[in-house]
């Protein structure tokens, strides 16, 4: 799980600030908001890829981050899937076994020996997921994992996210797809211009949003 307090990050012309944020085990926290709101930045801060200018971050257990365009190594699918485990010091043979299990779960076992660079968009995301999940992290930070994917792949990946949640992982999901957010989220957070306008349990958030800006955003209006 991840706890953040007084998190602040500044760029020229932009400031991200969150008073309090929690990612709890067995829960999906959906982060929604317009482009440029700071969603990706927030995720990177939680993942430890960027250091906050101010604030405290507490992480219990390893967290794994999935980029919007996952970087695949110039190796086979299997070797990519095993990469996270190898980084943790797993011997090659054991890592490959575990990697194969995960390739099976994401439906890529047939492609295990293929060069990873030749995969389609949906396959790349599934591979990146398998790679990330294989290390069985405590927290999973996903940056728009189903953007630009066809419905079949979207469904597949949503199923995986559901399974991870059931397995007790803390999931933070940044998404543009409000329907997806409704489907998957236990809690939701609306980020606008670097501030959390509203946050809370999913049902209340989507059905009876408190803030007018949230209402406007959820109804599809442009929110500046």
């Amino acid at each position, binding site marked *: 799980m991840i706890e953040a307090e007084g998190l602040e990050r500044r760029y020229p012309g932009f400031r991200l600030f969150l008073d309090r944020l929690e990612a709890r085990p067995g829960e999906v926290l959906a982060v929604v908001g317009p482009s440029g709101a700071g969603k990706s930045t927030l995720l990177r801060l939680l*993942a*430890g*890829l960027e250091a906050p200018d101010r604030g405290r971050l507490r992480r219990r257990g*390893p*967290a*794994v*981050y*999935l*980029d919007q365009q*996952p*970087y695949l*190594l*110039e*190796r*086979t699918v299997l070797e990519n899937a095993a*990469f*996270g485990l190898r*980084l*943790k010091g797993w011997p*090659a043979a054991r890592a490959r076994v575990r990697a194969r299990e995960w390739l099976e779960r994401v439906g890529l076992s047939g492609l295990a020996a293929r060069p990873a660079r030749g995969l389609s968009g949906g396959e790349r995301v599934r591979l990146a997921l398998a*790679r*990330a999940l294989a*290390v069985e*992290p405590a927290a999973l930070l996903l940056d728009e994992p189903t953007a630009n994917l066809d419905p079949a792949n979207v469904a597949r990946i949503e199923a995986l996210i559901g399974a991870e949640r059931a397995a007790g992982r803390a999931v933070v999901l940044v998404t543009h797809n409000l329907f997806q957010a409704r489907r998957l989220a236990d809690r939701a957070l609306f980020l606008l211009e670097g501030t959390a306008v509203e946050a809370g349990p999913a049902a209340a958030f989507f059905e009876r949003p408190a803030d007018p800006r949230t209402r406007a955003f959820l109804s599809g209006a442009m929110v500046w």
Partner: protein
Amino acid sequence: MNEVLEITLRSLGVSGAATLIAAAFGLPLGLWLGARGAGRLARSLLYAGMGLPPVVVGLFFYFLFSRSGPLGGLGLLYTLPAVAVAESVLAFPLIAGFTMAGVASRAEGVRRLVKSLGGNELQAFLTLLAESRRVVVAALAAGFGAVISEVGAVTIVGGDIRHATRVLTTAVVLETRKGELERAAVLGLLLLGVTLVVSGLLVVFGEREAA
């Protein structure tokens, strides 16, 4: 030994040696600059070096190795080692520059990936090295290709001396000068063939997937 074979082996030998020397300095430099990030000065110098006119390099070494020159006492002018030195100066910026550019384009992605999976900086650096094999192959091929096809500097520094410093390119020029155009063309094709074989070997052995 058949003279054409002799000339071919000499071309391969001196250009191969020059590429290795240039790689010994250029690969580490390129990897370092690519991984750590190269400043504008470093990039400008390397890119300028890639465009160095070979004849200028040749003239420089001529004056350096000339018996009237500062290193004249070494007696290196008109010898193969001098040719190798001049060629390695030509290959070095190509190898370093290509490596730097290729590694730099991968550096950010690899770093993010490794850190996103909980790895540290050292692991990121080592992964970057492993991922850069194709880049290194391309850089070596570029360096070798440049020097084996070089003729201006080789002539000035080597003298195109029969049985001593004559290589495929200078032999082509010689035959053309004599008006023996068919012979020149055959030598030229041989040169192309050699370059193709070496590039092919580099790709096949260099890009083999690691275990």
